[in-house]
């Protein structure tokens, strides 16, 4: 096992500033080829450690290579293009601006540390809220939640109450019914069994018929597809 300590960088600009400081480079005259190599090495190091470099590092790598390419162009050509800037200028400006804000954040951190031990009234409020949310009686809420609750309340009362009738149909009842008919008639059509009954009963009788066929108490006959089903009783029926 080995341990690698990598300094934490807040992004590609931070990394570049680190290189500049470490190698005592002149920020106004960055050796672009050298720093590009350093930067790419760092990205490769990240990749070798299975750290996916954030896209902004890749963008910066591309920017550096673009600048490097521009710097390689013969100088006279650049001068001809009227007053073209040093290709590094934009990067330098960004680096310096970032440097300034790093310095500023140090200054306000000092302020923050000086002020660390001033506490104001009401600092326990968050704890109280936490306890309340744990009790689940006083949940912090917002207007949206309130509106939602109201909406559901209104729409609930608008709905009329519907009664759901449960037809307790049992296959046994269907079987009993078919058997009772078939005891008197040896041969009966399925439509005759169903006549006068609603759809749920028709389904019930169909299932009951299948069950009886399975039990070999009856057998069914159909002359062709979708034609009338004729049921015949067998000797097993009366048992």
């Amino acid at each position, binding site marked *: 096992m080995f341990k690698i300590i990598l300094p934490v960088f807040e*992004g590609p600009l931070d990394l570049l500033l680190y290189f500049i400081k470490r190698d005592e480079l002149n920020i106004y005259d960055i050796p672009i080829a050298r720093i590009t190599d350093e930067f790419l090495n760092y990205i490769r190091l990240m990749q070798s450690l299975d750290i996916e470099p954030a896209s902004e590092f890749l963008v910066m790598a591309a920017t550096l290579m673009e600048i490097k390419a521009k710097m390689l162009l013969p100088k006279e050509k650049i001068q001809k293009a009227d007053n073209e800037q040093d290709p590094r200028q934009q990067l330098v400006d960004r680096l310096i601006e970032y440097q300034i804000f790093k310095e500023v954040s140090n200054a306000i951190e000092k302020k923050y540390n000086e002020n660390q031990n001033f506490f104001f009234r009401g600092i326990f409020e968050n704890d109280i809220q936490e306890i309340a949310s744990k009790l689940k009686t006083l949940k912090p809420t917002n207007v949206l939640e309130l509106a939602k609750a109201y909406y559901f309340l209104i729409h609930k009362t608008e709905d009329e109450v519907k009664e759901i009738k449960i037809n307790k149909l049992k296959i046994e009842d269907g079987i009993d019914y078919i058997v009772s008919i078939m005891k008197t008639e040896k041969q009966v059509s399925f439509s005759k069994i169903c006549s006068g009954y609603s759809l749920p009963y028709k389904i019930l009788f169909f299932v009951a018929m299948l069950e009886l066929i399975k039990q070999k108490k009856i057998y069914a006959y159909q002359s062709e597809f979708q034609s009338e089903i004729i049921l015949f009783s067998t000797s097993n029926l009366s048992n």
Partner: protein
Amino acid sequence: MINKFFELDKEIQRRIVEVIIFASEEPIPLNKLTELIVSNSELSRLENTSTPNHQSESEHLEQYILNLIDEIQKELEQTQRPYTIIEVAGGFTFATRPDYGKILSLLPSFRNKKRLTKAMLETLAIIAYRQPITKPEIEEIRGTNSSEIVNSLLDKNLIRIIGRKDTPGRPFLFATTNEFLKLFGLNSLDELPNLNEIKSFVNEKNRADEITLKIEFEQENKIDSEQDATE
């Protein structure tokens, strides 16, 4: 409004000022405090009797209240109260004395409560000086994605959304809160470290580095050429 405030005993006057500051949830500005104490009728009566200049009169009253606060602060110190009245975020409020605040910071629920990471401080600094500012503008300066940091600063109530910018995408505009001022012990944003001073400090440092590098470079060249000459 308190009737005949100025005819009351000074001791009572101090207690009244103290109780108003105590009852106020947020730091209470001096002018608001004065307004609460001095009734309009009394103000007009005072104006009639003394100088007709309204501005100087209310300033005079504010100074009077300020003196009372100063006296309360001295009392609190003399009686060794663990708290005092401080001026922060544009008003007066009670706060712990730092020595005793340390004790509070040892309590488990205080640990790491408002701890700020480097990235947070950086982002806060950018927002504090450039407000109102959008997230893309923050990211432009930092050179890195800042969504999570901005969100956690919002969570900590150190920044807030004050509107949208009239640019494509209408991004949110962020600004610092009073909570930010309180946490950093600032009375107003004017008390932030001077940006121009920091700017010139950074530039001077960069220039100084440049000069030393140039000198070093020239010296090296000189040595090289001298060596060449001797060879």
